[in-house]
């Protein structure tokens, strides 16, 4: 069945190429609308795909050309469209489009305008390729392209040394993930002789369930997922990635990159179902990361960093969900998260612009008056992420917590972790809200802040709408053909658990209100009282420093050792030693040439004696017998 899937891809690719090649020649308005429009067109094509799927097709798989063919190693370039990928591309292109539109306003004064849009389109294209790819190789290609795009965008302001470093860090971390993915592909191919998804899914049951191979495959895939989704322990790039322009953060965090890991696990759910240990690992990583990132989020003062840790935390939820098999819940949360996180970032972008690129929340305030639209939409986003009832985040998060708590065994504890995290989420989000947007929002402030342009606010408003009503989209049932039916929970339990999570969120909210709005002095007291713990959390558990000591510095030291000692002294030293040996010998032998006739004759006579000796040896007159 013919699909329009390639056009979903080609549209942003065309945008990328046009802006990359001719962007500097085009007027800014044109550049911006090409950038945004290409993604928008991609969204329209995605809608077409959605329509096709809703009208009966189960999945669409079309091969366009052969990438490599030798022996039984055959890799096509095929696009695989099912409801999972359709959901993904809808969010990517939809939310992506809004972010692009927002960027038209946000980046309007930046000299690298066309470059920015080219990168953004490349980003969207890469993500779409990742999602639509029907085989592992092209998924990896898209996967790496996403990493590249993020590298480009994080290092967009390449004059800043911090941005350059952050970009490199992101890339190297992602490369670690890529290598994991590649190794997973090796194991899959060598055991199942197949790399395209349909073949893979049909053959995966040839492997013993829970066996070493399938577990190794899933764990290696997980390495990729963890790196891309900034989960523990490969998460350190994500906060640094805030060096990029804010729309980039929105794109990375909301619609594209970091959710790729979730998508990967969901896409490979047949494998993870077949490898329970690996799936459990996914869940544990997700749960731990969720809590871990949330705790860090409570102590940061950079607005974008707080949002970054919140993303880590929310992705942790999604990992938790897909890890325990609640794939639909994970994807549901992915969607709602896309709405409110994009919203939060873009609103934060407006705030940062308003404060002339100051990102410290302690310097902010008086935003309701200055930036009313931003203020209200940000509040909606905060409520949604904190899981307040009837907002989108409430439904999706609740489904995850419910799935975890209702599962047997250790997963129950993961549910508890998720619950605690929900409370923390409410706490740090409202802490941010109270400090940055100002509890004193009722009072007036001398600062004259300006609301952003409509081109920036309109997308935020649209997303705010999504953040409110997104929870009513029946994602779970939409995805049923992919994942099968979700675990059914009784109404009573549903209400009970919902009440519980609301309660937890409320506690978080109240704590934030108490410490950062009502009694800021208490916050100070508690901070000193919790001194070491606070320092630990504020320094992100010193993991960056740990990695620096464990990997970076030893690596560089090793390199220097090789360069300064091993290469010149040992390896080249051996080579030169041999050469010097010959030279030395030569000088020794040279000395026999004395210039004196008698010594020359002595050599001749010596040679003659040698001849006689050899003759004697041949004839057996010497102990050493030569010849026959």
């Amino acid at each position, binding site marked *: 069945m013919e699909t329009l899937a390639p056009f979903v891809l080609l549209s942003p690719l065309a945008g990328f190429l046009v802006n990359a090649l001719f962007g500097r020649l085009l007027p800014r308005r044109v550049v911006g609308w090409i950038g945004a429009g290409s993604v928008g067109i991609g969204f329209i094509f995605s809608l077409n795909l959605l329509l096709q799927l809703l009208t009966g097709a189960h999945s669409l798989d079309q091969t366009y050309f052969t990438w490599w063919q030798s022996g039984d190693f055959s890799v096509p370039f095929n696009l695989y469209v099912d409801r999972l990928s359709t959901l993904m591309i809808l969010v990517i292109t939809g939310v992506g489009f809004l972010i692009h539109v927002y960027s038209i306003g946000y980046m309007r004064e930046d000299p690298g305008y066309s470059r920015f849009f080219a990168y953004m389109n490349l980003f969207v294209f890469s993500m779409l390729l990742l999602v639509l790819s029907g085989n592992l190789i092209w998924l990896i290609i898209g996967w790496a392209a996403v990493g590249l795009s993020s590298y480009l965008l994080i290092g967009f302001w390449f004059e800043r040394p911090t941005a350059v470093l952050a970009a490199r860090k992101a890339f190297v971390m992602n490369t670690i993930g890529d290598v994991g993915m590649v190794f997973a592909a090796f194991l899959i191919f060598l055991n199942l002789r197949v790399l395209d998804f349909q073949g893979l899914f049909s053959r995966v049951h040839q492997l013993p369930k829970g066996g070493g191979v399938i577990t190794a495959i899933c764990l290696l895939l997980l390495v990729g997922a963890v790196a891309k989704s900034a989960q523990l322990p490969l998460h350190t790039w994500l906060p640094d990635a805030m060096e990029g322009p804010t729309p980039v953060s929105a794109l990375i965090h909301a619609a594209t990159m970091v959710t790729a890991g979730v998508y990967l696990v969901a896409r490979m759910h047949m494998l993870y179902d077949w490898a329970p240990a690996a799936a459990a690992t996914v869940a544990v990583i997700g749960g731990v990361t969720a809590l871990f990132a949330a705790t860090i989020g409570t102590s940061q003062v950079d607005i974008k960093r707080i949002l970054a840790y919140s993303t880590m935390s929310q992705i942790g939820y999604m990992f938790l969900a897909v890890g325990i098999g609640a794939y639909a819940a994970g994807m549901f949360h992915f969607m709602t998260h896309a709405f409110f996180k994009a919203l939060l970032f873009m609103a934060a972008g407006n705030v940062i612009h308003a404060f002339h690129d100051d990102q410290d929340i302690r310097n902010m305030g008086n935003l309701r008056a200055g930036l009313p639209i931003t203020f209200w939409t940000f509040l909606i986003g905060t409520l949604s992420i904190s899981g307040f009832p009837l907002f989108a985040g409430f439904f999706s998060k609740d489904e995850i917590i419910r799935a975890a708590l209702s599962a047997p065994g250790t997963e129950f504890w993961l549910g508890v972790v998720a619950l605690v995290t929900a409370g923390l989420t409410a706490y740090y989000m409202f802490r941010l809200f109270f400090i940055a947007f100002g509890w004193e929002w009722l009072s007036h402030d001398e600062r004259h802040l300006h609301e952003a342009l409509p081109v920036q606010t309109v997308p935020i408003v649209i997303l705010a709408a999504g953040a409110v009503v997104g929870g009513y989209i029946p994602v779970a049932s939409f995805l049923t053909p992919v994942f099968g039916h979700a675990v059914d929970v009784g109404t009573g339990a549903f209400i009970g658990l919902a009440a519980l999570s609301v309660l937890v969120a409320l506690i978080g909210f109240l704590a934030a209100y108490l410490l950062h709005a009502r009694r800021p002095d208490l916050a100070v007291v508690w901070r000193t009282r919790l001194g070491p713990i606070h320092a630990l959390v504020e320094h992100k558990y010193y993991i960056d420093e740990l990695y620096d000591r464990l990997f970076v510095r030893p690596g560089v030291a090793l390199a220097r050792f090789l360069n300064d000692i091993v290469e010149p002294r040992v390896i080249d030293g051996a080579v030169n030693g041999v050469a010097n040996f010959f030279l030395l010998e030569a000088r020794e032998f*040279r000395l026999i040439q004395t210039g004196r006739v008698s010594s020359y004759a002595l050599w*001749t006579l010596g040679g003659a004696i040698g001849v006689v000796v050899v003759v004697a040896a041949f004839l057996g007159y010497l102990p050493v017998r030569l010849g026959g």
Partner: protein
Amino acid sequence: MTINLSGIGIDYGAILPELVVAGTAIVVLFLELFVPPDRRRWLAAVTVVGLLGALVATISLWGQNRSAFGDTVIADSLAAFFNVLLILITIATVAISPRYLEALDLDYGEYYILILGATAGMMLLAAATSLMTIFLGIELLSISLYVLSGFARTALRSQESALKYLLLGGFATGFLLYGMALIYGATGSTTLRGIAAFTTAASSNAGGNVLLLLGIGFLSVGLAFKASAAPFHMWTPDVYEGAPSIVTTFMSVATKSAAFAAIGRVFIATFPSISSRWYFPLALIAIFSLFIGNLVAITQDNLKRMLAYSGIAQAGYILLGVLPGTAQGFSATLFYVAAYSLMNFGAFAVVTAVAAGGEQTAELSHWRGLFYRRPFLATVMTIFMLSLAGIPPTVGFFAKLFVFQALVSAQIWAPLIVAVIMTIVSFYYYLRVVVIMLAAPDEAVVEKRRLGIPTSTVLGAAALATLVLGIFPAVVLDWATRAASLHF
């Protein structure tokens, strides 16, 4: 008893080339009386004409097998091969001589007579099939070369070189003769045919014959001395350095070629049945030559000395081809001798040409930046150096290839490995010359000195031949194979 000449094979046709060369010497001797001193180039011309005549005479001998004068001399393909080689070397030498001699004020007619005498001796050596003629050939060439080494009569170095060569040559001749006497005593014959008949006879137990083995040993001392193979090589660097460059050019290639002709006839044709006896000492001599020659050459700062050591090393390679005692090996030897003659002659001729250009020293430091001053000389020198090192596409490569092939076929490994390692060492000093010629000159002088047509022709032809034979070696290899195959 009446004198009966019928049974001994008086055949002047068989020694025609030698006769022509000797005759030319006598003609030059007389002409010298009449040629005015400033026209001595005529003597060179006459010499070349005579040599060309000898070349023609030689060609008629190709493919024959004419033993003459009571088995003391033979006209066969091997002799013809060496005759051609030696005559070409001599022609080339004579062609580049006048300019050099005039530059050194040495242009006397005796030079050509002595060169012709030496050539006759070498040709005789190549054709000799009796111990007597071998001895006489060696002495003829030696006495000529003693005088030629001292040809620059007033130059201390030249005198010294002549005296050293004379004394050490006499010393080695003693061993040679003593060996011959013992062989004679062991076999009762002085002709190689008679000796071979004795050694190959089943009853003789030649492998256990003390006299014979000692004789062969001393004979090889004498021959190795002439071939400047270690440890009988000691005279080589000093004599080469002290002798006038043109003489060094001539003797470095011609003497060695002739000596290897004799070595081939003695070891391969006469004593094949006891090859297990002479293999070991000969292998030792080859290894020692390779070792000393290549190793000491890397420390040399004087080009003539360096080339002398290189010649010692090359003697080792050539000797390697003799070791298997096979037709393949001997044809490789012959090919190597031809290749060596070509490239070493070229190298020394460049030294001579540079010397004739006013630089009377062969110190390497004087060669700095030769590429920029005299690009033609530097280019041909580079070709010769590459060839001596054995880099394709030069004839030197195939020379080594064929010798190594023969060794591998005969499964002779130890000498081969030494040869390979030493070849690598040799790259160091051969290329050092190139490096120095490439180095930026101290002062940017561009001298445009004319080489003269004969010199540039000879050098160009030698360089071209080095390359052409490096691409199409088959012709020479076929000749060498046919020349070598007569004995088997």
